[in-house]
């Protein structure tokens, strides 16, 4: 859990907004450190429910292991089966969450892998819509997903249209976006990239978006976020 990011997002393990759909995306860089942040953040908040702290019941849907049974036999599955088993697991988690625990959190690491396995972007958008309806609205839980894009090509070819379309579609569905990119000036050892945080809040008068830009550096103990130009290497 990165404390600086918590202060940026105005969230603590004790109090965070529920029913949020958080989208983490990256372009030509690696945003998985943010997934680590959210994972430890929600684990920390779950531990406050002392009664259930023994059986946290994290459902690590290890897609990698499950996929082997699907991929190797010859007469099987399309990507829709992968979606099917993911939706079953999220339903299971959701129901248990209502009975015993607090609001559930669905953390999907790398939705783009599903795209490269052949699932269409439309199916992914449907899936995220149903997840949002179940987890966020019905169960008041949170969803965090990671989408990885390649650099946007000038021509609009269909093959990676999937990743960009999915990102654009998800951006409209979510309430908080963290977009990770490399520095526009090139590779730097001390500043690993920039994060653009975008809140999409629904006020009475319509959508209200607020954007902030930070630069970050990842080290072994965590990540530090700072305003552009205030890196410790520069000052």
């Amino acid at each position, binding site marked *: 859990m990165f404390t600086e990011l918590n202060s940026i997002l105005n969230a603590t393990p004790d109090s965070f907004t529920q029913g949020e759909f958080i989208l983490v995306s990256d372009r030509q*860089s690696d945003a998985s450190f943010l997934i680590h942040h959210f994972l430890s953040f929600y684990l920390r908040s779950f531990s406050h429910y002392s009664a259930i702290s023994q059986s946290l019941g994290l459902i690590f849907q290890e897609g990698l292991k499950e996929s*082997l049974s699907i991929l190797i036999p010859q007469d099987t599955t399309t990507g829709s089966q992968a979606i099917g088993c993911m939706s079953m697991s999220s339903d299971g988690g959701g129901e248990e969450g209502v009975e015993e625990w607090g609001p559930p959190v669905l953390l999907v690491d790398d939705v783009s892998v599903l795209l*490269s396995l052949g699932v269409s972007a439309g199916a992914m958008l449907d899936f995220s819509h149903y997840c949002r309806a179940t987890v966020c609205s019905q169960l008041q839980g949170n969803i965090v997903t990671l989408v990885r894009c390649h650099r946007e090509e000038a021509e609009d070819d269909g093959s990676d249209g999937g990743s960009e379309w999915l990102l654009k579609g998800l951006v409209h569905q979510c309430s908080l976006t963290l977009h990770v*990119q490399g520095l526009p000036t090139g590779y730097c050892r001390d500043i690993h990239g920039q994060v653009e945080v975008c809140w999409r809040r629904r006020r009475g008068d319509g959508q209200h978006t607020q954007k902030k830009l930070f630069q970050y550096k990842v080290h072994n103990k965590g990540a530090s976020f700072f305003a552009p130009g205030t890196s410790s290497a520069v000052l």
Partner: protein
Amino acid sequence: MAAPVNSVGKPSAERPPFNSTSFQKKTRSKLISIPGTRPSVQNGQLLVSTGVTSLDYLLGGGLAVGTVLLIEEDRFDSYSRMILKYFLAEGVVCRHELFVASAQDNPDDILQELPAPILDDVAIHKPVEQPRLSCEPQDNLDAMKIAWRYQNLPKVQSALASSSRFGHYYDVSKTMEPEIRQAAKCHRFYLPEHPTQSSTTHSRMIESYSALLKSLQEVIHREGFDLSTPMSMSRNILRVGLHSLGSALWNDDLSCHDDPMHSHALTTFLYGLRALLRSSLSVAVVTVPSHLIQDRALMGNITRLCDNAIALESFKGSERETNPLYKDYHGLLHVRQVPHLNCLASQLPDHKDLAFKLKRKQFSIERLHLPPDLSETVSRVSRGELAGAAAVASACGSGTSGNKHLDF
């Protein structure tokens, strides 16, 4: 992202049952010592050598067990094939098992071309009996007078001596002797030998990839590389070398068409391969002819599905071959991706402009050095043109705008 498995350090539930005494020797690490491996200093992963020591250094000490190294081939597949042979040769020297798959050349041919290890401190275990040791008068002649304590040690060191060293050097002008090569166990997959079954229902993978994945899974399960099987006395590593995946010879049209029909075949295969590797004691090196794949986004997906990725760009046949700036090197090496297993930060090399040279006894990778420009009037080729449009998959900005370097 699946967490890489490092369960060789699993607690005593899987210890061999003969350990019945209560005395537990305190070892520094719980890792079972498999010959030819060492734990990483950064994150405790079990590493194997790729056979090229400078490449080991770039990858953070070696190739972690359970990961995939993707090599984007150079135009004529000469240096990528060389690195694949180094990888397999290292497996032979460390007594690992090999699995070689190819659609183009017979795996036996690839295995016969392995470079010979440089043997100053690696001795081959000759299966021939040594009659000198038992013969009495010879012993008296060879009796040591000063170092008599060492007299009773075996005269020919067994090949276990080689396993204590991590990373060996090879002489590419000679091929490995057949005795050494036959001592290692090799599994082969040659695509023309596997008839394609005509199945009506196609999974996302095409038949050649599914057959390869199935064959690899069988080998892993049969030979006991699975981590789920109960631990026996000795464990070994399986080195998997897959040559030129994605080329047309694998019945994949990824490199033939701009809009391939099987656009997800290779990515699905790589996903399945990683699933297999994560749950077993194996390492894979995959070469892909990326210069034939037009879709850069697809190449990006393929790179992200592998843990380590490097790209080779040789100067042969290009106008750079005659460029005096490059005369010391055979090509450029781009590190596309380095994994960060069990830690947050990744260790990318500090320098992005790396060049390689295949020397007779070493494959050296070093930073591209520009010769000093002593003349005042000669205009130097700018760095942006030299390094090319290599986009590194790290948190660095767009590579093609490297021409607009910030020049102070």
